[in-house]
């Protein structure tokens, strides 16, 4: 499910022959080395997540190192255990590989839900304007006035420690960004000539909003979604690190792995290094692609 959703985001870019600008943007993007590297990192990350059972030599909760491990002897990388063993004698490489699934799932679901919520509010504000707009935007202002991570912690704590509460918390803190973005785009499109032309032949409000204004306002939202995937992955790791993620210790999750390793940092620094680098790679891929996508669609941002 997560893979197909990622692919849907990507293929939307490919198959929309809509407008000169989008075609041009796609052309620019395909020739951009940074975007390609970003895309490569994302593809790598997604493939690892999907084929985790084939890649990982051990199950995530298997303890091949049981008996060898003592609090002072946690073996580092070796030919048999590429990333070494963790404090419970589990294969660190297998756990990092399986951890990709959690990060991808949380990132994609949280972003999609946040985007859906933001789009709903944005369409409301952008389509009706006036009082509806004022009310919706004040709600969004209130949400934005609370620091994101603080709010996420509060929401996750309120919902209880689980993967779902992490997703919902991250989704909620991302709603205002999407709502504002879409509202601004839609309001700027509302006064355009083609909308006037459509109104002048009697087209009703709904087809004008959904058939004309929305398709012209969606590009920056797609860019924002790509960038939000990166922050969502980091935020998910952060919430898990704080103990708000899944309550099941057997489920490998990068943020939680970092938290678990704190006590052994002196004797086994590799346990912090590998999950940490995994988070960086996943987030970096989405950031690189997102930034370049933004520049490709809107040349104003180009440096």
């Amino acid at each position, binding site marked *: 499910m997560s893979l197909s959703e990622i692919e849907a985001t990507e293929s939307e870019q490919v198959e929309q022959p809509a407008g000169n600008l*989008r075609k041009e943007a796609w052309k620019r993007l395909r020739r951009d080395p940074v975007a390609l590297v970003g895309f490569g990192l994302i593809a790598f990350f997604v493939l690892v997540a999907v084929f985790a059972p084939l890649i990982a030599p051990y199950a995530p909760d298997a303890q091949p190192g049981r008996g060898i491990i003592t609090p002072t002897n946690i073996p580092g990388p070796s030919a048999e255990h590429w990333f070494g063993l963790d404090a419970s004698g589990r294969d660190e490489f297998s756990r990092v590989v399986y951890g990709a699934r959690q990060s991808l799932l949380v990132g994609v679901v949280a972003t999609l839900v946040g985007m859906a919520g933001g789009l709903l509010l944005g369409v409301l504000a952008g389509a009706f304007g006036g009082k509806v707009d004022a009310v919706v935007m004040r709600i969004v202002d209130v949400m934005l006035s609370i620091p994101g991570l603080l709010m996420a912690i509060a929401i996750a704590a309120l919902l209880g420690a689980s993967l779902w509460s992490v997703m919902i918390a991250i989704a909620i803190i991302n709603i205002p960004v999407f709502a504002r973005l879409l509202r601004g785009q839609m309001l700027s499109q509302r006064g355009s000539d083609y909308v006037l032309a*459509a109104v002048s032949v009697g087209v009703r409000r709904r087809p004008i909003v959904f058939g004309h204004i929305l398709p012209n306002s969606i590009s920056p939202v797609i860019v924002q979604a790509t960038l939000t995937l990166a922050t969502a992955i980091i935020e998910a790791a952060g919430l898990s690190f704080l103990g708000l993620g899944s309550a099941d210790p057997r489920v490998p999750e990068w943020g939680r792995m970092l938290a678990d390793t704190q006590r052994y940092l002196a004797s086994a620094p590799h346990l912090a290094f590998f999950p940490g680098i995994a988070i960086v790679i996943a987030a970096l891929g989405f950031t690189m692609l997102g930034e370049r996508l933004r520049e490709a669609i809107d040349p104003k941002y180009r440096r």
Partner: protein
Amino acid sequence: MTSTEPLLDVRDLSVTFTRKGGPTVRAVDGVSFTVRPGETVSLVGESGSGKSVTSLAVMGLLPRRGVQVGGQVLFDGDDLLTLPRDRLRDIRGRDIAMVFQDPMSSLNPVVPIGVQVTEVLERHQDLHGEKARAAAADLLARVGIPDPTRRLKEYPHQLSGGMRQRALIAMALACQPRLLIADEPTTALDVTIQAQIIELLKELVQDTGAALVLITHDLGIVAGLCDTVHVMYSGRVVESAGRRELFARPRHPYTGGLLGSVPRLDAPRGAPLHPIPGSPTDVLRWDRGCAFAPRCQNRVDACTEGPPPLESYAGRSLRCLNPLTESEEVSA
């Protein structure tokens, strides 16, 4: 020029723009004109004369906030200004349609041409699917777009400016409206394309029997197309007449100036052009006198003492205290 009831009867239309903390601007001030079925009427004037605002007011397309519209716009006996919005939406596109100035921005860039044309048919004629597409292809063919079935799938950027204006005309004429308002339909086009589009409009109007309100600053277009001409200046009609009378004997100094400023092909090389002195920003407010007085060469003292009335005689209306006499040169 029949004696039937007017299709469109604009009575004392006024449009005022208000802004918080700014002065109010009266863009259209007591404009009246009628359009009979099948008639072609032109509103002529330079930028800022209120001709486009008049057309938007007739269509009910002005924003509601900060705009006050007064007077009456009777279409078939209904006042469009007080009609419920639903009824107005039914009338737009079906009975009255509009062609806009800029074909580059008046088509939605991310929606195929075909969808934009069929949308109108679906809305008003309850045509759907294959039937709507076939009708849309017919329409494109009628406005002179070659290979219409293929064009339906294309996006606006794949069409040239002239083709886009043709597509917009097809959209406007999709439901055979009885009144077409064309707001500077050729201003954004090449000169050669301009002639083609005007020719097309002329043909379509004749074929469908639609009345046409043509808004333009180009007297050349008016000469070839219109039955009646209303010359506007600073929001008011200053002279109205049949096309022949107006061109043969302009009475208002502004009309005379407009005609005189058109470069002539038969003039000797190097002959000076005859612009109207000043600019449209040099206006007097109508309640203080004639708005054109600061630029007028026929000005007399009475012109700046009070608003000149619109007087009608012999099929012509004129708002001038010291009009051009018949013997006066057209060149201002």
